[in-house]
């Protein structure tokens, strides 16, 4: 069972996402939430690194946090899956342990 990585800061704030992508392994999942959802945008500073990671890691983004920030589904990179809080709960069941990259 892969690890679930929680990332709640944007790449414009902290190094957390870059540091998480460096370590996440095959079969792991990453959930972008709170300010972390900005990293799901096609134009994020880490877009090319995200694209590389999408091949081996499942990247998800919390849809209510996207909507709150005015980010439309079309603005999200291909390969990133939008999920609800229920989806978040399910990810926490299908993956473990869970590491917050705060």
């Amino acid at each position, binding site marked *: 069972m892969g690890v679930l990585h*929680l990332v*709640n800061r944007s790449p414009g704030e902290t190094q957390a996402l870059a540091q998480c992508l460096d370590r996440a392994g095959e079969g792991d999942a990453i959930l972008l939430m709170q300010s972390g959802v900005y990293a799901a945008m096609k134009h994020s500073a880490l877009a090319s690194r995200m694209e590389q990671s999408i091949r081996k890691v499942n990247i998800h983004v919390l849809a209510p946090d996207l909507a709150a920030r005015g980010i439309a589904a079309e603005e999200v990179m291909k390969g990133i899956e939008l999920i609800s*809080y229920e989806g978040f*709960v399910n990810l*926490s069941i299908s993956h*473990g342990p*869970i590491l917050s990259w*705060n």
Partner: protein
Amino acid sequence: MKFAIQINSAPWESQACETAYQFSRASLTMGHEIVRIFFYYEGAYNGLRWMSPPDDENPLIRRWSELANEHGVDLTICISAAQRRGLLEQSEAKRLGKSDNDLAEGFRIAGLGLWVDACLKADRLLVFGA
């Protein structure tokens, strides 16, 4: 599935408490169990009873208390984190001559052993906040 939740952030500094609350609600609705919500570090400030934000802002504190009332969720604040920050456990408050109850409804103050206990009983630990 059994979840243990740890909250490390003060209520007004980030979205962390909000996310933790929404996750907890969703998991309860789906029929899962929250073994305990444990407040640590700056998270201890969530237990302050007298938060009085402007009327148009819903204080998270009431929603934590609702979660405790409606679903019997155990809201535990770490005693050493709380006392360090100025929220006293009852007997200590009495000893210092305080008379008000400064702990919000539905919360209790207890030791780190309860955090370990939650980790041992739960299938997963989720940590929210810086």
